[in-house]
């Protein structure tokens, strides 16, 4: 304390110093000291207050948000608002019966949707329901009491007009439209108070057959519209006025979280967002009855998610739900496996419609065990993305994946590593054998990789796809990236043009990779897409990818037949097959095909199968199967750049011929006799659906990014430091003039 004191006086003249008294200086010092302490305390206090204030403010903001939202919403469940304010009515009850007949590869399903109007008004009910994505909906009828009104296929707009007209006239009508290949709507007009109406919809689908297992999936859960989080809250409802061209109607939509604020005008029937009903009150019960005529003795038969009862009479197994009915909140899946020596290798089904012959051909190439024959010799080019966006955990994952991939190589394999950011670099000038030394060099190379720079993907892709390789080797390109590119279509083009005999496998890295790009890239590259979101998944995911890569692919699959017969075959280009996948073909011809030959190549050895198509038994639904395949192929061709209008015309043509619902055609059934008096009001009801079981349908995007900068903190901290410096500067100078004046006086 003493020396602190003395230094204040240092600059002052010695004689003043001698005249000075000690005590006032001491008290002065204490005053300054106190001031500094007080200022420091004040600054600290201010900082604390600001922080506390923020937190408190933040908290009130949260509750304000909730209040605003909740005030605007009213609680409710299964009520709908009518045109008369304050009067609510109940939505109709819905019960669905599903009957399925499985014969050969074809499933014929009949869905009976029974709408019961329990309100006091005439209603129009709109129900959104899912179907398998390869479903061919070809039949619909309305049952009112004993009467049946048959549905007809029409172009979408014509069907809609016919329906709207009937609705206005007070006649009963039903309209089945396809919103997406796996999502349909059924709208039923003029259901009288207390009345029950059954709409029967029939569709056909093809069984899924892979690795010797047959499976059938009946979707019952609808992927609902967006709701952020928190699904346990009660459903709430409110209404919005919806103005259509000729009348003002009331539409309704439910929101589950209590956050939804519905301001939308439903202008477009394709924007389908059915109201949701949350647990525990599950609605829309479904009963399922299946008659299975497998055609061979079964090893096992089971349902994946529901308990079932099985009964066998002769060749037919009858399957029904153990509980009788189930709420429609989760898909039903039935799986069966033939006894080992009855596994079908091929199947042919035929149908003749007018002058056309339709055939369905299924052929499973022999499964190539990992042990028989020569193991696949591969030339693998690994591409690793080392651009700036891979920085951090993504890079770590990518390195781990790559190191693991190197360990899976065998001596007869060849490999090379390409890295790219703004520039492209490759480890070896051309692929090297996977010797111990080479792998060691590669590992050192990988460990040195750093993520920085831009994402110039094109040169790396070109390089990898064009790296020359011996035909003895299978050329595979494994591409590790987060896909942070915007020039997707240009890259697809590169893949398409440079692919040759190579196969491109994409591995998505990081918490939020561009999976659209990688999935499509793998599709164009005729490979597959693997997504690794976590370092812990590297081992599992890479192992399963490698077992796929190591078993040879059946390629160049072609169908050969008598060229004098005019045919139309879908799909036009046969895809490559992994182990256990069958070829499935839809053939239309002007004369019955007697004999066809399928050829392919696996592990450089040709594969050839001759099939005798002469069959006595004709099956129903093969024409529809062919038409559905054609529609799917045509829809895909739009992605490939085909003329939209042309495709639309072709689809309408085939859909109308085969009586199929498609994107451009709908089924409509219209009663001839009016039932609703024109002066009675008609209320529109959108049928609520259940939330899907579990949460698997919720999309997550991983961790949300950090979205606050430290700017404010920096500013505040910097400002505090400067203030402190300033305060010190001022305070330390202050005593000098006061001392001087006191001394001079």
């Amino acid at each position, binding site marked *: 304390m003493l020396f602190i004191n003395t230094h204040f006086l240092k600059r002052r003249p010695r004689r003043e110093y001698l005249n000075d008294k000690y005590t006032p200086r001491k008290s002065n010092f204490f005053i300054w000291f106190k001031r500094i302490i007080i200022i420091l305390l004040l600054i600290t206090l201010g900082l604390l207050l600001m922080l506390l204030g923020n937190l408190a403010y933040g908290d009130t903001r949260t509750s304000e948000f909730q209040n605003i939202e909740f005030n605007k919403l009213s609680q409710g469940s299964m009520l709908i608002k009518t045109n008369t304010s304050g009067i609510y009515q109940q939505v109709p009850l819905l019960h669905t019966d599903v009957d399925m007949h499985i014969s050969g590869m074809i499933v014929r399903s009949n869905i009976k949707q029974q709408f019961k109007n329990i309100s006091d008004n005439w209603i129009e009910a709109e129900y959104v329901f899912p179907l398998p994505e390869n479903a061919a909906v070809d039949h619909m009828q309305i049952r009112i009491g004993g009467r049946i009104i048959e549905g007809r296929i029409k172009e979408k707009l014509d069907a809609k007009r016919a329906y709207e007209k009937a609705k206005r006239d007070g006649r009963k009508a039903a309209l089945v439209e396809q919103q997406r290949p796996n999502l349909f709507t059924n709208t039923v007009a003029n259901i009288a108070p207390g009345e029950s109406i059954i709409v029967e919809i029939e569709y056909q689908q093809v069984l899924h057959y892979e690795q010797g297992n047959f499976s059938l999936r009946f979707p019952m859960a609808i992927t*609902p519209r967006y709701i*952020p989080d928190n699904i346990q809250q009660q459903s709430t409802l409110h209404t919005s006025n919806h103005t259509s061209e000729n009348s003002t109607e009331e539409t309704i939509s439910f929101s589950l979280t209590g956050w939804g604020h519905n301001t939308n005008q439903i202008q477009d029937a394709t924007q389908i967002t059915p109201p949701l009903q949350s647990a525990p009150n599950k609605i829309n019960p479904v009963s399922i009855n299946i008659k299975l005529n497998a055609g061979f003795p079964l090893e096992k038969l089971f349902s994946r998610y529901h308990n079932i009862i099985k009964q066998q009479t002769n060749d037919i197994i009858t399957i029904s739900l153990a509980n009788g009915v189930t709420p429609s909140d989760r898909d039903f899946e039935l799986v069966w496996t033939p006894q080992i020596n009855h596994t079908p290798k091929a199947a042919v089904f035929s149908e003749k419609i007018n002058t056309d012959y339709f055939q369905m051909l299924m052929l499973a190439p022999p499964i190539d065990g990992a042990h028989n024959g020569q193991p696949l010799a591969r030339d693998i080019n690994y591409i690793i993305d080392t651009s700036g966006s891979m920085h951090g955990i993504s890079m770590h994952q990518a390195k781990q994946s790559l190191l693991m991939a190197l360990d899976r190589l065998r001596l007869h394999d060849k490999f090379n590593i390409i890295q790219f950011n703004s520039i492209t670099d490759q480890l070896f000038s051309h692929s090297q054998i996977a010797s111990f030394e080479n792998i060691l060099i590669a590992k050192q190379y990988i460990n040195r990789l750093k993520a920085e720079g831009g994402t110039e993907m094109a040169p790396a892709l070109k390089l990898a796809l064009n790296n020359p390789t011996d035909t003895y080797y299978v050329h595979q390109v494994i591409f590790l990236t987060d896909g*942070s590119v915007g020039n997707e279509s240009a890259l697809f083009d590169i893949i398409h043009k440079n692919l040759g005999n190579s196969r491109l496998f994409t591995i998505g890295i990081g918490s939020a990779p561009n999976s659209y790009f990688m999935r499509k890239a793998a599709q164009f590259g005729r490979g597959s897409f693997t997504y690794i979101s976590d370092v812990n998944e590297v081992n599992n995911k890479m192992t399963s990818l490698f077992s796929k890569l190591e078993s040879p692919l059946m390629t160049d699959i072609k169908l050969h037949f008598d060229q004098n017969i005019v045919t139309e075959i879908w799909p036009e280009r046969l895809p490559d097959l992994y182990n256990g996948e069958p070829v499935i073909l839809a053939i239309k011809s002007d004369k019955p095909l007697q004999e066809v030959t399928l050829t392919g190549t696996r592990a450089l050895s040709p594969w050839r199968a001759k099939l005798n198509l002469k069959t006595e038994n004709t099956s129903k639904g093969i024409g529809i199967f062919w038409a559905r395949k054609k529609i799917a192929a045509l829809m895909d061709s739009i992605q490939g750049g085909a003329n939209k209008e042309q495709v639309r015309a072709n689809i309408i043509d085939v859909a109308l011929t085969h009586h199929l619902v498609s994107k451009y055609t709908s089924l409509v059934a219209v009663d001839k006799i009016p039932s609703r008096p024109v002066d009675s009001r008609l209320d529109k009801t959108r049928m609520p659906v259940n939330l899907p079981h579990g949460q698997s349908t*919720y999309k997550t995007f991983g961790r949300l990014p950090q979205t606050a900068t430290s700017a404010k903190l920096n500013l505040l901290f910097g400002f505090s430091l400067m203030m402190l410096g300033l305060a*010190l500067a001022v305070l330390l100078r202050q005593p000098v003039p006061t001392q001087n004046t006191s001394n001079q006086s």
Partner: protein
Amino acid sequence: MNLKNKKPYIVIFLFIPGCWFIGQGLYTESKAIVAQLLLEHAWNIAKAGGTRNKPWPWADTWPIARLTVPRLNIDLIVLAGDSGRTLAFGPGHNFASSTPGKKGNSLISAHRDTHFKFLQYLQPGDNIFIETAQSENTLYKVTSSKVVDMDNARFIDDQSSAYVHLVTCYPFDSIIPGGSQRLIVSARAQSVI
């Protein structure tokens, strides 16, 4: 040794870091503003050519959309990707989410203290316009705002409509960055086929 002697050093010792921190703060804030001006140019080229265009040669991102909120006078260029690097320059679009204007859930994030400061003033029913290089202006209406934990944000995967979710840190006036709360303002497109 005495304090009087050291005074200039002490003051400098406090002033220099003080300036540095203030500089950092101002740099962050001005980068956010200046970048948007540079992006404006890149966006105009992208819009004219319809291709990816880097705003500056070493950039790891490029403009993909323009986001406007007429009521609040907001006009922002949205960038590709939402890494920390990108968010310093402007709002970033999450690659895993669907393209703005297209069906599905589209996620756009930005800093709460710069570009997305306005999220706190958005009300249900507000109009948000998003224009991409490939598409015309799409009108979205705000449907909800919600505070969630950053690890617990789930979106219902509905591919029948287009949604955009604007994400920023929460609470807005917190000084310390790196909290785990996020505000999600969701809006639904009014005119997507």
